[in-house]
Structure formats: structure tokens, C-alpha cells
């Protein structure tokens, strides 16, 4: 008579997710419960509609971009592994990270990876640079109809001017990192997961 939701999640899976993301056992089972409750179709994967059913996300101006981050390139279904991998970006950075010696490189919640997540919200076509057009589109999502095209255009131009160091009128990831070097990314892009 175990719990119905977590009986679909095997111990080996939990261990793998633990290694990959750094979440604790109880956090993983609780997040699986949440995943399960969002999955209205009960097919083990979330669709975009499942996310859009969350009212607080639906009214978020960047809601669609955030939802997109959960879906790998070209796919329409997000399974639990992918869900956890994306959420792992928002784990707080601890001083004594146990998985600093991950063979796969940096942990998912490192400063660089958090910045990469944010970068990808701007980079609509995933070509690793933010063009003026893309910046304009994201700005338009955030302000709605309240600011004129000209004003928005000048905001975009100014932003690119400040960030662009190699003169290609686009913002690359390294330029993005440089621009935000004084911002406390670790704190702003972290969610306090309880044990």
C-alpha cells in the first residue's frame, strides 16, 4: 500500500536523477507528485497545454518562453527526467556542492548554467546569439501594448550597444555574461526548495 504516484517512479530512476540534478530523495518524490498532478492526460509526460493550465503561469508575460524551456528542440512532450533537469537549474548554489566532481562538467545549477537558461529565453531561434529582432520580440512580450515601437526600438538599440563588444550587432553568450557580471544571479535565479 505505497503511494500511488511514486509507485510509478523506480528507485533506480530516483538515484539517477539525484546524481544528475542534486535534488534529495524526498524532493524528487514530491516533485514527481506535482508532475503527476499536472499531467492531466496521465501519459507520463507533460504537454504545453498542461503547463498553460496553471493560471499564474498563463498570466506571466514570458509564460510561453518559460514553458518552451522545458521542451527539448522540436519535441512536444516533456518527461519527468527532462522536467527535473530543467528545474535543477533553479536549485540554490550551495557552498559545499557534493557533486562538484561531476564527470559531465558543471552542475546544472551553476552560475553559468543559470545564465545560459536566461540567455535561451531571449534567443528565440537557438542560434546562440541574441539579435535585435529577438530582443525586440521578447521586450514586446514583457511590455504588451503599453510602449510604442519607436521607444521599444531605441531601448533595444541602447541595450545592444552597451553589451556588444565585437561589433556584430548581436549579443553572444560571453557578452551576455559580461553584462551581468555584477548581478547576483545565484540568488535571483534560485528557488528555495524545502526538504
Amino acid at each position: 500500500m505505497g503511494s500511488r504516484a511514486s509507485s510509478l517512479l523506480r528507485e533506480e530512476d530516483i538515484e539517477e536523477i539525484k546524481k544528475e540534478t542534486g535534488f534529495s530523495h524526498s524532493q524528487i518524490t514530491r516533485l514527481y507528485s506535482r508532475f503527476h498532478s499536472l499531467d492531466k492526460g496521465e501519459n507520463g509526460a507533460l504537454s504545453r497545454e498542461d503547463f498553460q493550465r496553471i493560471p499564474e503561469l498563463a498570466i506571466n508575460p514570458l509564460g510561453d518562453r518559460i514553458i518552451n524551456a522545458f521542451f527539448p528542440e522540436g519535441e512536444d512532450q516533456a518527461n519527468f527526467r527532462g522536467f527535473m533537469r530543467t528545474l535543477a537549474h533553479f536549485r540554490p548554489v550551495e557552498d559545499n556542492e557534493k557533486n562538484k566532481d561531476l564527470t559531465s562538467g558543471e552542475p546544472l545549477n551553476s552560475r553559468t548554467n543559470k545564465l545560459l537558461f536566461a540567455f535561451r529565453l531571449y534567443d528565440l531561434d537557438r542560434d546562440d546569439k541574441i539579435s535585435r529582432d529577438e530582443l525586440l520580440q521578447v521586450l514586446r512580450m514583457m511590455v504588451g501594448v503599453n510602449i510604442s515601437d519607436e521607444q521599444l526600438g531605441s531601448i533595444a538599440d541602447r541595450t545592444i550597444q552597451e553589451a556588444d563588444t565585437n561589433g556584430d550587432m548581436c549579443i553572444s553568450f560571453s557578452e551576455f555574461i559580461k553584462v551581468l557580471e555584477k548581478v547576483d544571479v545565484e540568488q535571483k535565479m534560485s528557488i528555495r526548495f524545502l526538504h
Partner: protein
Amino acid sequence: MESYLFPFDSLICMLLGISFTVWFTLLLHLYKPYRIIAKEPVSLEQEIQDMRRGGAEPEFDMSDIFYFCRRGVESIVDDEVTKRFTAEELESWNLLTRSNYNFHHISTRLTALWGVGVLIRYGFLLPLRVTLAFTGVGLLVVLTSIVGLFPNGRMKNYLSDKVHLMCYRICVRALTAIITYHDSENKPKNGGICVANHTSPIDVIILASDGCYAMVGQVHGGLMGVIQRAMVKACPHIWFERSEVKDRHLVAKRLSDHVADKSKLPILIFPEGTCINNTSVMMFKKGSFEIGCTVYPVAIKYDPRFGDAFWNSSKFGMVNYLLHMMSSWAIVCSVWYLPPMSRMEGEDAVQFANRVKAAIARKGGLADLLWDGGLKRGKVKEVFKEEQQKLYSKVLVGSTSFQSTNQD
């Protein structure tokens, strides 16, 4: 036959109440915290100002996106709305399988306890309660039809009140509902409207067994229809045809005509419009607050340890739900009658509705939400997203171009 069953049934209620309170304290090792994340309630403006790198106010900063990003992901992990439409997650298990969401197998002792529980509930309590339920409903139909034969007048009203109360009390026994009524001096009077938070159809039985109300609802077919037609013979209830429900003016007119007649009973309305899981009170529809009469708010809070009263209509039909109810340990709830409220000068219907809602939420210990219960089935309105966009735009250009319009 009922008088033979009544004392027996009250005894069961008391025994259940005492024994299970003891058991639950013993079983406290089942405690499991259920919040996943800790959210900080910071406003958009504050957060973005904090993030600005200081200096000569750059209008836009690439880090502004972090606020929306984090709030978005927080709502994916834990949001305030979707969890109101499924049964409340309990901190400790109440030995009912249907409430068992996150608990792993703890011990064989617990399984044995649960097994004994099943035997008692389904083998003993359920048949007893089903018999009572049939008795209650049957009597309601028959007796109200008989009362309907009387000529209109004080005698008829008196009999109708007595009949309704008796039948509802039998139904309360059928559910083994242990109800504590508080502040009965504030009970609704004729010519007013009683509003309460809505968790399940049982709310009606709970309130109507302590006072007489005029019910409001849609005309149904089948058994419900039979009951409705019988009830309306004894005293005036307000049943709407499906088509009439859409016409708001018609609805408002019928309600105001009813309250204007002081000889008619107070109307019972659930302004949320749908069942919520008793952890929060959601948006009240303003219709009942526009009529301009005294409003008697009532808060109903169920104790989830004994049985989950919430009706998840997308998962269970009515019959299934009633079976669940009648096979729980008991329905334990508290009803608070709040002091009457009226619309104040300069207050519009929506503000009045929110004021009443806040009072009910406070008394019942429920979260007071602005979200619409209709989100159970429908999408959220675009206008809320537009509000967020407007807020952000103000932050973006507020200090320079929006000076004249930006004074709040």
C-alpha cells in the same frame, strides 16, 4: 424507527470521535511536511529595482527577465490555484485510501489498522447510513407533498419548517456529520441572503438542518427533479430553468422579488459558483451582492482528518461521491454564523463581495484568494496578463515618460 436509531447513532459518533482522536495522536510519526518550496512575496517593482545595478537608471536591464523567469518556474512547482480543485493533501494520514497521496508503506501494523478500518466502514457504517439516507429523502418527498395540500398560511409555513428540519436532520445522521454551530444569534432572518463558502453539496444539508432556507438552483431531471418539485410545494424555493440561468436580469429580479417578501425564507447562495476544496475561498460572483439586501455570511470548515468532504466533480460523479462520504469515518465540521453585513455608501458590488469573502475566510481559517473558481474548468482571462505587462512597462519608463499617469 428513527427514534430507535438516533441515540444509537449519536453513540457511534461519540465513540468514533474519541477513539480516533487518540489514534491519530499515536500515529503522529506519519507527519510529513507537504510544502515543496518557500516563496517570498515580493512585488514586481521592488524586485526589479533591487536588481538594477544602480547608477543612472538604465531603462531596461537584461537581468529584468530573471524576475519573470523565477516566478514562472515557482508557479510550475507550486501554484495557488490548481491545488484548490483537488482534495487537500494531509499532513498525517487518516486511514482512508483515497487520501493516501504521498505516504509510503510504513508498517504492517498500519496496514492491519487500515484493514480493520475498511471492515468497520464498509461492513457496518455504510449500510446503516444508506438506510438512513433513503429514509430521509423518502420522507422529505412524501411529507412536503402532503404539506403542499394545506392552504397557504401560518399553519402551512409552520409544518413546512418542521418537515424540512426533520428530514435534513435525518440526512445529517445518514452522513454521521458532527457539526458545531457557532454564534447562532447571527442566524439568517427572512428577507436576507445567506452566503457561504462551497465545498460540496453536503453544505446545503448542513446549513438546512439548523435553519430554514429557500434554495436556489437549476431545475434537474431524475431523482433531484422529484425532490425539487416536492420541496417547492411546501414552501417557495427558487428553481431556474437552464435557459433562464443565462439571463442575469431575470435571475436578479426573481431573487429581489423573493427577498422583498418578508414572509419568505432567507435565500441560501454559494457565490463561488463551484466546489472548492475547503482550503481557500475563491472569487465571489457579484450577482447576489447587487440585490441590495442584508447579507448573512456563513463560514463552513470541514475537518479533513475524519473524511474529505470536497466533491471533485471532474473525477467523481454524485453517486460515487455520496458513497465516499457515507463510508468515511464521519464528517466533522464547524459552522460560524457571522454578523450580518450590508453594502456601504460608495461601495460597489465587487468590493462588497470581497469584503464578505474576507470575513468568511478569516473566520474559517481559509486562504482568501482573488482567483475565480471558474478556473477549474476555464482559462484565465487575458486581462490579468495585460496587468502584469502594464506594471512592468511602468517600471521601465515610469521615471521618465509616464510621470503624469503614474501616481500609485
